[in-house]
């Protein structure tokens, strides 16, 4: 795959279709690939990487890149293409300045999961079908690839690339996913248990803003948390309320726009399952207002800027099952 992407990048640069290519290159370690803009063939040859660790969703960078001079090529995995289309819908990306190469995807890898299976000091990971060969300082281990997928890939919602100029690999389909199972588990708990669960999780938040900065939906020109006029400006967390506040507001601001790309949880250094908050909104929207997938098309109105005359009342929250708090 890496070879095909590299060739495509070189081809697009050499025939002047684009002036820049947005892809991935190695970061500090081989498994923390980082988004990068390549302007010359040499850079591509030398630095371009695509591997099981190319998790980063490149769509957000197009907000800036598509406004620069010249056309930019970008590689989008299926879930990234949803984010891309959602941003198009919000007029954030200038479509004519972007050349999208859709790439099929069979799930990406989570280093944490590899480590959790007893691999310390990993030096290289090679993929061969469903098997991963993990080289460590202490020897070589073979792992099942499926056991090492990122959470979002383990419950992949769609292999369909919804926006592209050309495809590398096969176009996929929307999948039956059990991604809401964990949300449902939490819903089945008592409020006390849920409160304790979220306290446990959110109390670890260090407000590094990684979730915000990586999120394609969190791309405001100026975030309310940086804006002194918003009344909620806040740089560092002082107490439990502010931990809750930040994540509630963040989830609410992306509600109806979040494509469930899972980047927030992937980048969280504290391993807080932030995607559960967003997924809770998606699950509620699906149940209350009909199934909606942000970014799936260009026309459907977002559920929060739409309504029907016989929407459910807010009291549905009080009336539905579960223990009253």
């Amino acid at each position, binding site marked *: 795959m890496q070879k095909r992407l590299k060739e495509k990048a070189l081809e697009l640069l050499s025939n002047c279709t684009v002036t820049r290519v947005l892809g991935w290159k190695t970061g500090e370690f081989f498994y923390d690939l980082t988004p990068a803009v390549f302007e010359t063939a040499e850079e591509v040859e030398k630095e371009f990487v695509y591997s099981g660790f190319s998790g980063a969703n490149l769509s957000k960078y197009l907000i800036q890149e598509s406004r620069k001079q010249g056309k930019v090529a970008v590689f989008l995995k299926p879930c990234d293409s949803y984010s891309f289309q959602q941003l198009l819908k*919000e*007029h*954030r990306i200038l479509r004519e300045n972007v050349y999208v190469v859709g790439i099929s995807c069979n799930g990406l890898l989570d280093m944490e999961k590899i480590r959790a299976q007893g691999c310390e000091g990993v030096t290289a990971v090679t993929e061969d079908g469903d098997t991963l060969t993990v080289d460590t300082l202490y020897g070589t281990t073979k792992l099942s690839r499926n056991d090492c997928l990122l959470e979002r890939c383990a419950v992949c919602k769609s292999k369909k690339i919804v926006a592209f100029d050309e495809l590398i690999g096969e176009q996929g389909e929307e999948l039956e996913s059990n991604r809401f199972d964990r949300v449902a588990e939490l819903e089945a708990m008592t409020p006390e248990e849920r409160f304790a669960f979220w306290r446990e999780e959110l109390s670890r938040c260090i407000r590094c803003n990684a979730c915000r900065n990586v999120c394609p939906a969190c791309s405001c*020109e100026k975030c309310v948390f940086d804006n002194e*006029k918003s009344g909620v400006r806040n740089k560092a967390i002082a107490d439990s309320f502010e931990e809750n506040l930040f994540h509630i507001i963040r989830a609410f*601001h992306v509600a109806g726009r979040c494509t469930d790309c899972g980047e927030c949880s992937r980048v969280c250094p504290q391993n807080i399952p932030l995607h559960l908050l967003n997924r809770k909104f998606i699950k509620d929207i699906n149940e209350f207002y009909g199934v909606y997938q942000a970014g799936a098309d260009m026309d459907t109105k*977002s559920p*929060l*800027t*739409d309504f029907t005359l016989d929407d459910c009342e807010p009291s549905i929250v009080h009336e539905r099952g579960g223990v009253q708090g």
Partner: protein
Amino acid sequence: MQRIGVFVCWCGSNIAATVDVEKVSQVLAQEPGVVFSTNYQYMCSQAGQEMIQESIHKYQLTGVVICSCSPRMHEATFRKTCEKAGLNAHMVEIANIREQCSWIHKDMATGTEKAVILGRAAIAKVHLNAPLTAGQSPVKKRALVIGGGIAGIQTALDIADAGFDVDIVEKQPTIGGKMTQIDKTFPTLDCAACILTPKMVDAAQHEKIHIYSYAEVEKVKGFVGNFQVTIKKKARYVDETKCTGCGLCTEKCPQKKVPNAFNLGLDNRRAIYIPFAQAVPKIATIDADYCTMLKSGKCGVCSKVCTAGAIDYKQTDTYIEEEYGAIVVATGFNPIKLDKYDEFAYSQSPDVVTSLEFERLMNAAGPTGGTLLRPSDGAHPHTIVFVQCVGSRCDDEKGKPYCSKICCMYTAKHAMLCREKYPDTDVYVFYIDVRTPGKNFDEFYRRAVEEYGVHYIKGMVGKVVPQDGKLKVQASDLLGGSQLHIEADMVVLAAAIEPDETARPLATMLTASMDTNDFFTEAHPKLRPVESPTAGIFLSGACQGPKDIPETVAQASAAAAKVIGLLCKDSLTCNPCTAQPDELMCNGCSSCEKVCPYGAITYADKEFRGPNRTTLLRRVAQVNPAVCQGCGACTVACPSGAMDLKGFSNQQIMAEVDAICR
């Protein structure tokens, strides 16, 4: 820091009995920014108002808090008072310590404590108030009426009679609309043409009315008082200024096989035509789809016979731009298509007709010259079956969920006319319910039954099968408890009515809202029934919902009255509490635009300074203060908080929250 004055009103004993007003004014005097605090028996009295005005001068107040009755009662009063003393009206806040404090609490301590908190909230808000000035926008004293049916004509006549210029845009070659096709009108049975055509002539001759026939609205920009509209005049290939309407061309044109739309295709007309004798304007139009000259360049007969030299085969669509202060939508209705109702054999037999086709068959100017004859063989029908609610009150996708309202009455009319003209016919009407609310309507229906002997049968027709030149009708008689088999000569279907297909794209152009059935929504279903929620757009006739002629005319005149009220003003005072985007923070994501009920938000690409002396082009929201009504829906839809509402800003409301929870 504001210099705030606090004025606590006793309201006689209304407040003073349960709130210690003295204490309230003393406690509030300690609040930051408060430079003066007092209490008085009746703040709204002349003396009270003067006291406020004097204090404004004496203490150079920049903000005023009045603890009194509900702002719904006296906010306007106190704002005016302060304005007279030179303070901006929006620097005044009211703390409602009567309706929401003294009147609901019995205990003095509780009441006083709450009054202080409410006062603090108002003070906190005033600290963040900014002077607001209501903008003025000029009113273009000209109205546009879209649709030239009876609704449009009536509205235009009423507006023009009040002395304002009105333009009517009609997509057909003539004004008059559906009513021109109707034979008689209920409940008086007078002839539709006799009452309509004089009005058409009035409209044409009125010096304040200009009719754009065979024209459509192409583009609408602007807002209330100041719409810019592009009107497309479709090429009719006849010079309107030269054509005398003599009709010679329409007799000589060799292309005779054109389905006559005016008679709903029941007969044919020529390729150059005048829809009917009383058309206004009476000008010929060439049907480009059938004219051999336009299609192949061979013919030119009409041009040869026209003594006025009005034929112009080279004519093209022309565009006119005009400014209007108000727009009236009068796009009317159409019967629905019945091709999905196989059971009634509408597509299989020409003798199954819609009610509107039946009108043409009864009309003296219709294809049969007013004698009721079967379309299939021209024979006189002896048994006629009317079916009501065809496509109305359906909850499937074939029909419409609503009651079309007019069918019960016109079916009674048809049945009655049949029996009157041809007493030898048997007339059956199958109904689900007969709905006759309206002046003299039920009497009319009863007359059909009692005097004219129309067979009204509660039940529906299940199927119609054409067989041996007859129509076999199978129906149920629910009250009699039997299934009927009738051999009919004609079947007349009361098709549901739906809004004209041009209404939906027009609504988009006007940013006027529509319901799921494509009827225009009114600003308030009960209290503002002739206005659209979009300011400056008014609704006339069946575009708002099914209506008969009397109701249509009533609504048309009502819409005209509203338009006149608007055009009488030289300028409009805008609501000062409007939404305002901070362009530096705006993402241009369109969330706000999608929730705005008034279409007040548009987008512009603006240049912003980027890093390193670069400029960035960004899409940012723009609010038109003349249109914004200040609901605030956009402020919450905006993810970045760029959109705020003047007078109820995020900071102001949060300050109130803080003061209350303190």
